[in-house]
């Protein structure tokens, strides 16, 4: 359902994505692994048009886009089919947990408020936060904020959710609750593209894995194969040291 071909991106003179390919099928949990600075965040941001890529092709649901020049309208249209969970949550600070979830439904998708709130309550319930609907982000822990962010992503019924290191801003004791929520999403068949340093999570949940280094894909394939029998020495070395977070 998502295919990226030969995506390139430079910041000034620094080439950050050197022609990356990526394929995610419906129901996949694809993880992107790689050392710090390898371009994982940039890749996700380019795929959701938060950063304009220099060139490349994006195929979404069979529809093809040239990443070098995506119109604002196309970007907006595609974003309504996707959701993004940020490393630092990025909850709307002036909105309650429930409003964070309903905002995109009511404002962007013109859903009647009552229906949006019903969906919002269900989404928050799903991440275990039915008791925190009226709380503002500043009144929530990091783990709770990230779970609200996941509820916000889920509520719009996206075809794919992008996660950029959803637990790396969290204290270790809070990562578990967020990973548990993601694990359940995966079991429910949600298509996810996850940048993560959590190798344990990646090993147990991912169906596909991509190992990136220095702006290029070193190895990609079924998760089991990449974890248990990596074809590249670099991948093996990365997995053995447990990635940068270990």
């Amino acid at each position, binding site marked *: 359902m998502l295919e990226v071909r030969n995506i390139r991106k430079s910041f000034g003179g620094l080439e950050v994505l050197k022609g990356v390919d990526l394929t995610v099928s419906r129901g996949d949990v694809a993880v992107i692994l790689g050392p710090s600075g390898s371009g994982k965040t940039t890749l996700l941001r380019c795929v*959701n*048009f*938060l950063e304009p890529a220099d060139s490349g092709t994006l195929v979404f649901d069979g529809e093809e886009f040239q990443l070098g020049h995506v119109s604002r309208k196309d*970007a*907006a249209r595609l*974003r*309504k089919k*996707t*959701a*993004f969970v*940020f490393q*630092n949550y*990025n*909850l*709307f*600070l*002036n*909105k309650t947990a429930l409003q964070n979830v309903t*905002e*995109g439904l009511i*404002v*962007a*998708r013109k859903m009647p408020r009552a229906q949006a709130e019903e969906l919002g309550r269900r989404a928050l319930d799903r991440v275990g936060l039915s008791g925190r609907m009226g*709380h*503002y*982000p*500043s*009144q929530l822990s990091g783990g709770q904020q990230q779970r609200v962010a996941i509820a*916000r992503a889920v509520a*719009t019924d996206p075809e794919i959710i992008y996660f950029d290191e959803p637990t790396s801003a969290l204290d270790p004791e809070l990562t578990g609750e967020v990973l548990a929520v993601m694990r359940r999403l995966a079991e429910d068949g949600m298509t996810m593209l996850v940048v993560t340093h959590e190798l344990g999570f990646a090993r147990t949940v991912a169906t596909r894995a991509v190992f990136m280094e220095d702006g290029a894909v070193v190895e990609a394939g079924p998760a089991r194969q990449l974890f248990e029998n990596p074809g590249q020495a670099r991948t093996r070395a990365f997995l053995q040291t447990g990635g940068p977070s270990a």
Partner: protein
Amino acid sequence: MDERLLSIIIDSFPKILVPGLLVTLPLTAIAFAFAMAIAVAAALVQFARVPVATQLCRFYIWIFRGTPLLVQLFVVFYGLPRAGLTLDPFPAAVIVFSLNEGAYCAETVRAALEAVPAGQLEAGYCAGMSYLQTMRRIILPQAMRTAFPSLSNSLIAMVKDTSLASNITVVEMFRATEQINATVYEPLALYIEVGLVYLLFSTALTWLQGVGERRLGAYQGKGG
């Protein structure tokens, strides 16, 4: 205190207060409302870096922050008739105070917009919202909350600055006091008296500012 002075002070009180309530406060309120509209528009234009319009905003702000308010009042009220545009004192004052205050507040609002974390706009996009929807629902409300104390200070300063409108014959509180003084000649007592009425107004506004900040504080949670 002799009886004559006391009765002058007492008699003049309503004559000062009434123009205060009927001219000073309306002038402040109307001009500040226009100033807010100008400030938000100019700040949004600059924040979005709209070509040409941004340069026009910079130019406008440069002019109005770089010249004295009194000079601006004189240019508009005494000067513009030469160019064929004659304005009554009150509208002239409203125009000048709106533009002057708008220039200062535009900078306040722009700084507050820039202070909203960039991730808020990106989160809006990712939730499917457009730039304008995110600005209106997410960014601007947060910026206005940040700007609130500073805008309140501007408002309080403006109440006092409206006394300058006396120079273009607006019979606001200060000019009313001058007129009383011209007949009874008690400058010390009368100017202190009008000063106290200004103090009363600004104290009331400061109190309102406190109420407003507490409201907004509760609205945004502890972190704001």
